[in-house]
């Protein structure tokens, strides 16, 4: 019963990703990207992993979409963000096909060799948030801390590189 | 604070060449003023501001006054030999002469530090038509900036040395100077039905049959 809904979501993800690539207007493509991310979150929901789905929406739709949009806006000098698309030449098409073939083969191989047996019923046994928390804090605690540290370092590095030396503004001296 | 004469002498002592005359003020207020010449006006102003005894640090008021050309008829008594050999007759002769008018700028100076009263400076332009330039006192007192722009806008006195001499009250494209005595009001205005006088005459000229002609009393 769930299969048609699944196909619909998959179609939405692929379609929005595809159109996002083709569109000239960067802002529109960025917003379509957000649509595809929410599609992926729908997949997680279908798989019963609520925590991951909502985290996906919070992080991607809330945070990273803003980063993408700010990046698009601040780097585009022109008034509207039309991207000059250069005409496709034979060389480019060939390179594109070759790249997609490589990526395609890797994914197909991974899917076939994994011995995950797709269970008959769509919904896998629920993994509650509490167990997730216990797992994260328990065996995977080291990985979690490492990721945290890397993120902070990346954030601080970005700030130091990006921030110009601001002249002392007379704004707030009493 | 000494009287105007003492102040004039003090100024003359400091600036021997400057032409300073006292302009008496007959009214009971007795606020006499000093007429300065355009050449030495700024140095005198700086002196008035910085001299320890005077310290006129606030130019409270800058006013433009328009003195139009005056036609003076002066009668002189002339003794005419009587052509018929009679005794010489004394007869008055009226001779008309035109005294050229001028545009005058009056500065009221006060001292906040020493709290003493108005010293009134007067600067007059040569005439009302071509040479209407006076030295601007904005570099001495910043308060003259807007007020001198207003005198330029409404009277047409050009202030040399003013940082930003533009029209301040009328719009930039306006040609005439409204506060001059010989200013003719532009005829393009919306008619108000004030029932009498030259307004009504102008109205009749504008609207042949004004809707609100005051009707005669109904019998």
């Amino acid at each position, binding site marked *: 019963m769930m299969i048609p809904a699944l196909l619909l979501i998959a179609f939405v993800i692929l379609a929005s990703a595809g159109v996002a690539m083709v569109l000239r207007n960067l802002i529109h493509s960025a917003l379509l990207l957000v649509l595809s991310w929410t599609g992926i979150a729908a997949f997680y929901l279908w798989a019963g992993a*609520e925590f991951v789905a909502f985290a996906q929406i919070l992080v991607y739709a809330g945070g990273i979409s803003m980063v993408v949009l700010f990046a698009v806006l601040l780097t585009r000098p022109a008034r509207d963000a039309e991207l000059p698309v250069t005409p496709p030449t034979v060389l480019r098409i060939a390179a594109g096909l070759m790249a997609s073939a490589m990526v395609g083969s890797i994914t197909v191989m991974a899917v076939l060799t994994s011995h995950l047996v797709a269970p008959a019923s769509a919904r896998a046994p629920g993994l509650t948030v509490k167990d997730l928390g216990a797992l994260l804090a328990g065996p995977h605690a080291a990985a979690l801390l490492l990721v945290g540290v890397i993120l902070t370092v990346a954030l601080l590095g970005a700030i130091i590189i990006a921030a110009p030396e601001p002249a002392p503004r007379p704004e707030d001296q009493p | 604070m000494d009287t105007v004469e003492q102040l004039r002498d003090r100024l003359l002592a400091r600036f021997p060449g400057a032409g300073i005359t006292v302009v008496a003020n007959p009214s009971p207020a007795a606020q006499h003023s000093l007429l300065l010449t355009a050449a030495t006006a700024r140095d005198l102003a700086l002196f008035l501001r910085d001299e320890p005894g005077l310290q006129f640090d606030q130019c409270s008021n800058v006013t433009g006054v328009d003195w139009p050309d005056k036609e003076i008829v002066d009668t002189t008594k002339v003794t005419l030999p009587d052509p018929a050999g009679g005794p010489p007759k004394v007869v008055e002769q009226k001779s008309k002469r035109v005294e050229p008018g001028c545009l005058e700028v009056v500065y009221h100076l006060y001292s906040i530090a020493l709290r003493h009263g108005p010293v009134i400076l007067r600067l007059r332009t040569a005439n009302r038509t071509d040479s209407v330039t006076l030295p601007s006192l904005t570099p001495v007192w910043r308060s003259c900036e807007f007020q001198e722009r207003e005198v330029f806008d409404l009277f047409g006195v050009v202030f040399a040395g003013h940082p930003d001499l533009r029209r301040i009250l009328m719009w930039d494209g306006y040609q005439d100077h409204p506060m001059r005595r010989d200013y003719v009001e532009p005829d393009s205005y919306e008619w108000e039905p004030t029932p009498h006088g030259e307004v009504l005459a102008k109205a009749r000229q504008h609207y042949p049959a004004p809707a609100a002609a005051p009707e005669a009393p109904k019998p």
Partner: protein
Amino acid sequence: MIAVAPTSDRFLEVAPLQLRDWFIGLLPQSLRWITSGLITVVAILAVFGLLFAYLTLAERKILGRVQNRPGPNRTGWFGLLQPFADGVKALTKEDVVPRDADQVLHYLAPVVLVALSLLGFAVLPFGRHLVPVELDAAVLYFFAAGAATELAVFMAGWASRNKYSLLAAMRALAQLISYELPLLLSFVPVVMLAGTLSTTEIVTAQGGWTGGWIPHWYVLTPWGFAGFVIFMIAALAESNRSPFDLPEAESELIAGHLTEYSGFKYALFFMAEYFGMCALSGMAVTLFLGGWQAPCAWLEFIPSYAWFAGKLLVLLLGFMWIRATLPRLRMDQLTRLAWKFLVPLALINLGTAAFWSLTAGWTGPLQLVRWAVALALVVTPFVVMGRRLTAGVAPRTYRYAAS
């Protein structure tokens, strides 16, 4: 599959559910699941739609009364038809869309904003059995929906293709993002203490009363009160309300990212603002004020959804009270308040909550020590950082002239 109404509870408590079950009973089996979902959706929309309408009226009445004037009292008795009059006015106003605006996004922005701010109501436990959706990670869902509203604000600002609205949209985004952090950090202690992300379990964790009088609400604990205050300040900023209503401020160049909107789209933006305000204060009630829990044992006979509604209204009136009094912050002060004051306080509050949960076992005199240490951990950083924040700012004394 639908949770059948329990029969053990008092009549008023289960009345709405029994009504729903009776209605569903009339329908064939296949339609039952859909209609029960639809009923909940319609119920939420009706209740919060009407609440939005009468919130606008209440706001203008309170603002009026605070300023010694009656507020709208001409339409209907005591002005009760005023919101519908505003609605008709908004509908009949011409909807002007600028020529070179991005038509699709310009149309989509208010729709997305209202949809996202409505999503938040799905997880709020309105009553003991009145929970629209039982989610395991309910609180995370609520803030995921909240975080996406920034997208809609950006779309509104960008689509109007007008330099000032884009500038103001950037400001609104900066405000929303910088207050997202204190909002999220202030609810983490609650999740830590309640041990769950699901809103219903958080409310049940706040059940029970010591001595029948003092409820176990989180707001009555030192870290809970600090968390509540930070949550409310951040909620004020998230919904662009008074001390932080910079985007629509008249000192702003123009009316922020709403400049190019008129007619019903403009009203939609305000509907979204009010829904956001209701959702955030609903979540505040759930997290800190014990959701639908009654304040003391013998008040249990009043149905649970009445308690939730009461607390929600009290918070909303607080929003309006603040709007009537406080002046607006400047942009740089606003972001400095978020990053240099609220975020550090929220982090320290995490520490206090950790200390509180670890020392749960202490009894007797140790209880006092526990309270003292917790209070110290909350108050001292507040005072120290408060003094640093308002370093150059103090009421002055004035001298008089000698003469």
